[in-house]
């Protein structure tokens, strides 16, 4: 730590042949994932410091229509590879195509969303390119002295933060969690340049076939995809009482979850468990109802932006990480809250008319 790093002349030559910042434009069925624009906004800020351009890259069956948005959020260039074989995301053809583009155009920094797709893809691309990859970062800065990218990420379930560098390999790759940066459009967007690439791949060369896609099945839910999560614990007392958790989640446009104890008591399925042995979430709003806050639970949700907790025990550990603490019995409190929210909702609607 803090040591200076020595470079040979050859290493410096190699490094200086890489320029510009790239952002992977993740899309599904032609719809871009919002994290792509969040990353473009961040890339613009970093590019200003490095005095370089922002490139964006998309692979898909049809992605050209994303150009306007991509330029609006600050890309100078948009690299596109379109082909029928890219209709659905598959690791291997995306990996090979993206790796080829990087080898050809040599970006210095490459940012990818830490989504299911981005996490699947980035590890294979970095291995293919034999470069460093820092996963799930929450902060990106340029070291003013060295010009290197400083990538900060939580480890040990958020107990420790580590700032990672990738001194001698390029591109400096990292994945960034959705929602960490804000997407801000450029005031006066300019029409950027579109660069179209081709692929030599054909369907018969791709061994992986997609047989079926099911959208949002109840059996397996990705909680990380939701901005708002309402979770219940053992304090909810019964499976029936979880109906109010579900109703509140629906009112707020989010989804519902449970603590390990709620799962063990049969109130919620394991697929909706938040915590060390369940899913880790970084919600914009997390409402914990009747959850005491065992450390196993806290490591799964404590990075959420706003945490509201309702618990009868004013010393419950959940309150130590909560933005708002409500010392009440959730079973009595939540239905009243739902009633009030419904009333507010009606008022808001009638104002609209």
């Amino acid at each position: 730590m803090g040591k200076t790093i020595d470079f040979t002349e050859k290493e410096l030559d190699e490094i200086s042949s890489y320029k510009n910042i790239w952002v992977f434009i993740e899309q599904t069925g032609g719809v871009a994932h919002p994290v792509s624009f969040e990353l473009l906004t961040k890339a613009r800020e970093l590019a200003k410091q490095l005095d370089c351009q922002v490139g964006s890259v998309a692979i898909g069956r049809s992605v050209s229509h994303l150009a306007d948005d991509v330029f609006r959020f600050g890309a100078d260039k948009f690299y596109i590879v379109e082909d029928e074989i890219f209709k659905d995301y598959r690791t291997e053809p995306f990996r090979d195509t993206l790796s080829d583009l990087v080898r050809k155009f040599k970006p210095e920094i490459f940012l990818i969303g830490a989504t299911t797709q981005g996490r699947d893809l980035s590890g294979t691309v970095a291995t293919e390119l034999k470069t460093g990859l820092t996963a799930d970062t929450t902060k990106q800065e340029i070291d003013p002295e060295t010009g290197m990218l400083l990538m900060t990420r939580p480890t040990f379930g958020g107990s420790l933060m580590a700032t990672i560098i990738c001194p001698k390999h390029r591109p400096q790759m990292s994945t960034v969690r959705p929602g960490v940066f804000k997407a801000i459009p450029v005031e006066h967007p300019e029409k950027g340049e579109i660069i179209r690439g081709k692929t030599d791949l054909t369907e018969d060369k791709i061994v992986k076939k997609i047989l079926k896609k099911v959208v949002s099945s109840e059996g397996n839910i990705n909680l990380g995809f939701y901005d708002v999560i309402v979770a219940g614990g053992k304090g909810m007392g019964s499976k029936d009482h979880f109906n109010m958790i579900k109703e509140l989640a629906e009112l707020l446009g989010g989804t519902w979850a449970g603590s390990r104890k709620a799962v063990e008591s049969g109130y919620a399925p394991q697929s909706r468990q938040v915590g060390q042995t369940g899913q880790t979430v970084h919600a914009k709003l997390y409402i914990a109802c009747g959850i005491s806050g065992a450390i196993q639970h806290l490591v799964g949700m404590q990075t959420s932006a706003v945490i509201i907790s309702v618990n009868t025990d004013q010393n419950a550990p959940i309150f130590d990480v909560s933005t708002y603490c409500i010392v009440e019995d959730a079973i009595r409190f939540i239905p009243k809250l739902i009633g009030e929210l419904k009333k507010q909702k009606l008022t808001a609607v009638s104002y609209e008319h």
Partner: protein
Amino acid sequence: MHALVFIKQVPDASQVRVNYETGTIIREGVPAILNPFEAHAVEEAVRLRSKYGGKVTVLTMGPPQATEALKECLSRGADKAYLLSNRIFAGSDTLATSYALFEGAKKIIELEGEVDLFFAGKQAIDGDTAQTGPGIATRFDIPLVTYLIKLDEVDFEEKRAVATRLTEFGQETLQVPLPAFFTVEETLNELSHSPLPWLIKAARAKFEKLSGENVKLDSEQCGLKHSPTRVKKAFTPEKRQRGETLTGSTEELVFKTSDILMPFLKKDLQHGQND
């Protein structure tokens, strides 16, 4: 059927505490456990063996103490456990780790025969990177299936598998030729209780050792010195402070909470109107 499961021994993240003065993790007294996702990977491999016959091999890279996690794999039914250990691995990042495990796996194939299915957890609970599995799959140049929630079908004659994985929007079912690499979710299966003979076997187990002596290793790709990434700084996040305790009668609390929630409620309304 031959399944090779990559496993990692990790500190129990729920018992890790932080020294806020030095900004370091207190590992002393923290039990080391088998990465929970990999317990499910071993379970899946053992279930395949009971259905199709064959064997389950596990491999870990780490110091000699990592044998505790290997022992747990044996008690969960694995046939043989390999420990890949070498001083030159110290400080390896994910790229260097996937290299070492790749070379270790190649040696196991040489000793134990071809592998049909490779398994690992979707990520380790200490580093949470989810990169090592995809890295090994890329080095073998075999299909990768991350976030596995169901192995629908395995056909050893046709050498192919049908597998369902979790995606951002739900799930997808894929067909891949074998060998293939799977990283698994905890919902893949429920852990079984170990029968007594497996526990006895684990208690008496001997571990197969792999090192620089029997594995061909390119030292230029190993350890801290040849890892592309470095930890520049480690520090403790600002400890989250207990926020505002809302006060008042239940009715007042309801109003206060509803005010806080208004921005989220409105967002939902706009949604509804657009639909």
